[in-house]
């Protein structure tokens, strides 16, 4: 078997807050193949960005391992990390804070090339011009500053900056959440075209399931720092196994005027706090199927099929015997 592009094992990250220890990522395992899009979905504060930043080596985890193309990233010295950085890039959510306000568009896109020692100004300029053209920025944009652009245009600049180094993996942290629907479609199409052309793998973070459905080959649902279900696209949409996945899919508002909110079942109840120790299943306060065992014991991830895992006591019986 070939080495996966990204392999995450037992990742944990906590933050010390004045109310106690906050567990942002709690024992996450994930494997991402070359050229694949793995979507990471879940509600606000569940730890998606934290996980994304660990993969991009922006923050260090407390425990666990991140192997990128066979190389362990956790604990690597900044000098050893630098050549690998070229291959893992990131696209950010906020098109207004993700670009240096004091740099021109050309400078922003050229910067990665300078950092990685690409010689020759003309050569760099050519690469920048090509990239700008590729992401749909007009050539006359090069000498302007970020504040002169709309959100969608800025996101194109951010994409150009991330892709100019020809990375293998791009962590996309809610890349279209701040954009209007008409512009969102433009950016999503661009991202999937570029993926095909350049053979990119995406770790695609989004809280919007319709975007996930469009983009993802595999889906991971995160809840309070843990993955509660991971599945290939077909299995996820046709037969989601975790009650939380099922609830999220049901909750997704879709533009069908015959499916009214008043007729839909909705999740009631509040989320437990991510601070301090927790017992049992984290979802039980909102789970319509919760029973005694959910209070006493936290479910572990059960393997249900190829790349399909769910962490719920109710799937235990259906789990494949060889729990890897």
């Amino acid at each position, binding site marked *: 078997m070939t080495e996966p592009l990204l392999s995450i094992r037992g990742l944990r990250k906590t933050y010390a807050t004045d109310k106690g220890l906050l567990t942002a990522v709690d024992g996450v395992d994930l494997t991402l193949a070359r050229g694949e899009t793995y979507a990471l979905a879940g509600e606000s504060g569940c730890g998606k960005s934290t996980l994304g930043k660990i993969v991009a080596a922006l923050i260090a985890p407390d425990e666990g391992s991140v192997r990128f193309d066979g190389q362990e990233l956790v604990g690597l010295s900044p000098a050893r990390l630098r050549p690998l950085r070229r291959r893992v890039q990131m696209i950010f959510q906020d098109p207004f804070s993700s670009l240096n306000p004091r740099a021109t568009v050309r400078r922003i896109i050229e910067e990665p090339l300078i950092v990685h020692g690409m010689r020759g100004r003309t050569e760099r300029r050519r690469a920048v011009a090509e990239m700008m053209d590729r992401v749909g920025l007009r050539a006359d944009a090069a000498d302007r500053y970020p504040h002169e652009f709309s959100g969608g245009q800025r996101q194109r600049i951010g994409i150009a900056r991330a892709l100019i180094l020809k990375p293998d993996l791009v962590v996309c942290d809610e890349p279209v959440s701040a954009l209007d629907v008409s512009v969102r479609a433009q950016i999503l199409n661009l991202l999937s075209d570029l993926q095909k052309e350049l053979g990119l793998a995406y770790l695609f973070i989004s809280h919007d399931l319709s975007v996930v459905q469009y983009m993802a080959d595999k889906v991971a649902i995160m809840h309070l720092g843990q993955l509660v279900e991971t599945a290939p696209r077909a299995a996820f949409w046709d037969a989601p196994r975790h009650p939380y996945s099922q*609830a999220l899919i049901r909750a997704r508002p879709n*533009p069908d005027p015959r499916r009214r909110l008043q007729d839909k079942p909705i999740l009631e109840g509040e989320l437990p706090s991510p601070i301090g120790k927790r017992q049992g299943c984290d979802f039980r306060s909102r789970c319509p199927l919760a029973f005694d065992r959910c209070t006493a014991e936290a479910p572990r991830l059960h393997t249900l099929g190829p790349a399909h895992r769910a962490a719920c006591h109710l799937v235990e019986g259906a789990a494949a015997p060889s729990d890897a």
Partner: protein
Amino acid sequence: MTPVLSISGLRARLRGPDPSAFVIDGLSLQVNRGEVVALVGESGSGKTMTAYSVLRLLPPAIQLTEGEIRLGGQDVVAMETRRLRDVRGTLASIIFQEPMTSLNPLMTIERQIAEMLLTHGKATRQTAPERVIELLELVRMPDPQTRAKQYPHSLSGGLRQRAMIAMALACEPQILIADEPTTALDVTIQQQVMKLLLDLRDQLGMAILLITHDLGVVAEVADRVAVMYAGRIVEEGPVVELLEAPRHPYTAGLLACLPEGVGDTGRLIEIPGLPPKPGSIPEGCRFAPRCPSATELCTRVTPETRTEGVQAFACHHPRMPA
């Protein structure tokens, strides 16, 4: 029966050297008792400014130049300030997108709601606390006695929005204007809040003007929909007809570019380009530069709004009816 809210021919412009910088450009809309009307449009189309005009809350940079706004039959535009203060809260109230910045961080939830009741003479110092708890129960705030004593920062986003709704409902308005009330919330919480609003509508008979850019939410809750583009309503109609058979190419485009619109492998439909900015609205139909059906006529002549069946739209080349 007179509508709760009726806007006609509203225009508002950015103050400044450019006399044509209209952010609202000839907008007419009616909301009837007990009705949920959704005002949909992309960022910058003028939804919030429309809502602000209704309560005369426009920022100093924006000036109402033309048009009529009637709340429960009363003319808001000409209303004197004292009367206006009465109207805000009792006839119409508004909830905002960001529940954190619209609650006072230095006051307990109880104080803020009580303040609202006291200013409008809906309660006395003695009766206010009890009424506050009633209101918090009405919006299904869990553990209202404890929450009443807390400050906004110790509440989650969903609970804060509930507190905002309780405050908005304190004086039993006839219409609630909700400006993207759930955009900052997770889907599951969003549904709780929207369901609450619908239940309250049934219970209290108030109308809701729901401002949103999310057609999914519109499909779930609205009775009638008005689609706004660059300061104008380009299409309006009952939710089922409008979403299932949109007549205006912009409405159709908005629906088509949603990820739900494609099969498992297809590409997303794009609306090319960007909405125009106030001051650079194109001649003729303002959507023409981005419109797939545009002809030479569209770039010259502004289409009038016309009604066919239950839908009204402003387009020279409408799509086929269902």
